[in-house]
């Protein structure tokens, strides 16, 4: 994130303790830059939705502050909320309203004058044009999800929150959603999404935040995260098992696994090893190799190891 540009979302010391005494958020500090796609990862109940709901005005924070485009979400809630669109996790829509009516309702609710052209274009972008006069209850789950996105975008927000946007969504809609997020980014809209499909964060996000038990345990550029925390391994499947790593192979820092059937080298950061020399050496030692694999850990593995470390 470029530190010279004022963040579009600025969170300082934000906490939430529910009346039951349950702590949903420990002090959270976070800056989100204008136009970035930020993915908030975390297991169920980690505090992702609480964080989003506080920023959007649905949950009152216990302490701390949040500004949206420079407006304090409590003292200047009108200006702050006018900038924000929210697609909540649950499919909560009216039933008897038409698609057209409900999207225009949202636009009015957020203080914008009617703009039929904009709403028509929005429905077209979301493949909802032919459903505009349909009652919401007659739509499929995927279509309802599209309606909720249309509602969230109805007032042309500059910041969009997508809470688990692709949970229970078919492949086509998921792809459309990803395209939508990219096109929003091109228009300068900041997108903050929560997900536990890590593949999604891997695909779309510029930066990733990991939240666990109400604590933001890591915020990092996705690329850096993959590079520093991702493990690369070279696995050599041996023709016949070894009982120990031969001392001649010491410089390559190999480990024996799979009952002596595999030799594994774990790449440390960016330092790569001379694989050709290793293979040559093994050949001179008459160690037969049946197969060779390299393996790079995904964001998912990184995430799982992070969360379990902080458990």
């Amino acid at each position, binding site marked *: 994130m470029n530190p010279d540009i*004022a*963040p579009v979302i*600025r969170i300082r010391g934000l906490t939430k303790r*529910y*009346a039951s005494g349950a702590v949903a958020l420990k002090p959270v500090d976070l800056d989100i830059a204008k136009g970035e796609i930020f993915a908030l990862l975390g297991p169920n109940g980690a505090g992702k939705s609480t964080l989003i709901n506080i920023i*959007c*005005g*649905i*949950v*009152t924070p216990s302490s701390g502050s949040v*500004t949206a*485009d*420079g*407006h304090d979400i409590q*003292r*200047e*809630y*009108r*200006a*702050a*909320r*006018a900038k*924000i669109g*929210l697609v*909540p996790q*649950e499919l*909560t*829509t*009216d*039933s*008897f*309203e038409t698609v057209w*009516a409900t999207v*225009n*309702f*949202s*636009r*009015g*609710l*957020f*203080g*914008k*004058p009617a703009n039929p052209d904009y709403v028509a274009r929005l429905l077209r972008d979301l493949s909802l044009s032919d459903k505009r006069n349909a009652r919401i209850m007659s739509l499929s789950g995927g279509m309802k999800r599209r309606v909720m996105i249309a*509602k969230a975008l109805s007032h042309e927000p500059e910041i969009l929150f997508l809470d688990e946007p692709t949970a229970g969504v078919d492949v086509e809609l998921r792809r459309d959603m990803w395209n939508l997020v990219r096109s929003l980014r091109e228009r300068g809209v900041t997108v903050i999404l929560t997900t536990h499909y890590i593949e999604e964060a891997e695909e779309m996000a510029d930066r990733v935040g990991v939240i666990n038990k109400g604590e933001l345990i890591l915020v990092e550029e996705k690329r850096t995260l993959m590079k520093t925390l991702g493990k690369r391994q070279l696995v050599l499947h041996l023709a016949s098992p070894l009982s120990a790593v031969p001392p001649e192979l010491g410089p390559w820092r190999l480990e024996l696994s799979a009952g002596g059937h595999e030799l594994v080298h774990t790449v440390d950061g960016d330092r790569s090893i001379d694989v050709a020399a290793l293979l040559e050496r093994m050949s001179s030692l008459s160690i037969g190799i049946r197969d060779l694999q390299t393996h790079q850990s995904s964001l998912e593995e990184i995430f799982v190891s992070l969360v379990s470390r902080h458990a």
Partner: protein
Amino acid sequence: MSFPSPRAGSGKRLDFNHHGVWAIYRFEIARALRTLVQTLVTPAITTSLYFVVFGAAIGSRLDSLGGVGYGAFIVPGLMMLAIFSESMSNASFGIFFPKFTGTIYEVLSAPISYVEIVIAYVGAAATKSIVLGLTILATASLFVPVHILHPGWMIAFLLVNAVTFSLFGFILGLWATGWEQLQLIPMLVVTPLTFLGGAFYSISMLPPAWQTVSLFNPIVYLISGFRWSFYGTADVRVGLSLAFTLGFFAACLGVVALIFKTGYRLKN
């Protein structure tokens, strides 16, 4: 941010979200229009039935009350009965249903103040019940001669009572956590008090002991004042009626203000 944003403070410029209020108001009115039969035709038929039963069958055997025929006498009571129950059910349902389905998230995340939310929901509920009250008045005038002595006061009482019971309904809708609770107060408290509050009779017709008991029923004052605006006769002094009407209005307004100060049942 360490430096003031040039746009900081622009929140104060948007002082009233009239688009937002209008959106909710229209949504609520549209809900009534979808169920026009239930909203207007049903009460009109019910009123007609009251006149067939009380006006023609029973009323013809009763003496006039203070110079007013029984059929005409019950018109203000019937109107109030409808105003009370429709205001309450419209406003309570209006806010309870989005809470129940979860669509309230959108209202809570919108740049709209609590005052504006109340104006929109209560305004819509009051509008609907006033239209209904006037429908009943029009239906009634087909059966009995209705004349209104103080039309200005009649409108004023109608308006304040519609808004008051809409506010009351809004409170009920916020408070209720289930459908049963939503019905509880209207069915068990307000409807009995209304029936015992002189909607269909003058409390002077009761034995003295019960007349005294009736004076503890606040609804008596509301109905009596409204009836006075029609016929100039009342069970209690009209000043008292006015005081009770405004007092109840102020009380409901106060409770709503208190609820919003604490975010009760809306935010946690």
